[in-house]
């Protein structure tokens, strides 16, 4: 009888222990992100110890990540305060972009090359004697109206649609009078282009090509 009561007591104890394990409510947990959510082992006899060990490992890992992030931020702050000199890649666009001085020199070179083409076209232009005589006289009359340019005129030649006027003199005087001279040509010879040649004695020669007709832009 006494032994039966003991077995019953032990059986009730086992039943109670099983109930506690099975029906125990899970503890409320703080939400964790999927990236750091630990894979908790199933509860068994050593569940709490294993969970604790697992969480300690996670905390250790997160501490390591935090240290790495801090180190990276510190490096960036140091870099911002003391930037390293930028070494330009010669093949990059920024290195290829000309300076203003280079751009101006290039612009002047392009103009000289353009005027070389204009001069070459003039040499190849056929001569129309009637047109040439008429425009020659017209230009002489305009030059006579300007004593400065009349004295500076060192050459005058007309062909079939273009005339070449050479003016040599003091640069200030020639440059001052030239705009009014080409303006005075009106609709008779409405277009002009000029090349400047500096002389060793300080004077300047302006070679002016004046043209009768409107032509395609690339031709004049």
């Amino acid at each position, binding site marked *: 009888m006494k032994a039966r009561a003991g077995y019953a007591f032990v059986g009730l104890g086992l039943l109670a222990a099983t109930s506690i394990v099975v029906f125990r409510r899970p503890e409320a947990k703080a939400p964790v992100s999927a990236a750091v959510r630990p894979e908790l082992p199933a509860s068994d006899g050593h569940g709490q110890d294993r969970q604790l060990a697992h969480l300690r490992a996670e905390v250790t890992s997160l501490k390591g990540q935090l240290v790495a992030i801090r180190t990276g931020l510190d490096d960036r702050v140091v870099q911002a305060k003391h930037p390293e000199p930028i070494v330009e890649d010669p093949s990059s666009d920024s290195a290829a972009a000309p300076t203003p001085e280079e*751009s*101006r020199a290039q*612009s*002047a070179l*392009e*103009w000289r090359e*353009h005027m070389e083409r204009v001069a070459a076209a003039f040499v190849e232009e056929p001569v129309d004697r009637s047109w040439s005589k008429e425009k020659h006289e017209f230009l002489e009359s305009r030059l006579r109206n300007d004593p400065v340019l009349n004295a500076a005129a060192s050459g005058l030649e007309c062909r079939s649609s273009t005339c070449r006027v050479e003016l040599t003199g003091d640069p200030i005087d020639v*440059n001052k009078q*030239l*705009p*009014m001279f*080409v*303006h005075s*040509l*009106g*609709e008779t010879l*409405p*277009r*002009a*282009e*000029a090349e*400047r040649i500096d002389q060793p004695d300080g004077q300047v020669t*302006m070679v*002016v090509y004046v043209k009768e007709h*409107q032509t395609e*832009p*690339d031709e*004049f």
Partner: protein
Amino acid sequence: MVSRVGLTGKFGTFALMAGAVLALPEQADAVNLNTSGTVCNPYNVGEANDIDYVVNGVRTGVNVASGRTVICAVPRPPQSTPQQFFVDGANSVGRSTSGTLYAYDFNGTFQSSQNFSSSAATYDILLTLNPVGSWSYVSTLVSLPASAGGVFFGTIALQ
């Protein structure tokens, strides 16, 4: 099931994105520069009192018996050549206006020019300077008719 708030939110986001795209500025390089004739100055300083500036340009004074000349700055976009320009103005009956568009390099050396002339009641003349470098200056010299007989409206640099 999608809630009404969700639908409204999605539509609002779409509308905002569409509005932002439509509000993007157009290509910024197609710009003409219009310069009124009111910027012109007397070519000869002694004739300064003979020039009359009006809201739509410049002309000679009513009591000025002969023509006068003005010089006008022409701001322009520095672009590749050739570059085109419009000169605009008006003449009274029997009067005419003539002028010249000039390009000078940054050393002050004459490069190129083109003349124009008109006796039309209103004129709108297309001129071309070829080439004109991106570092060049451009100006317009205008011979105005006497006695307020014509108004020069200005120059437009095209791009």
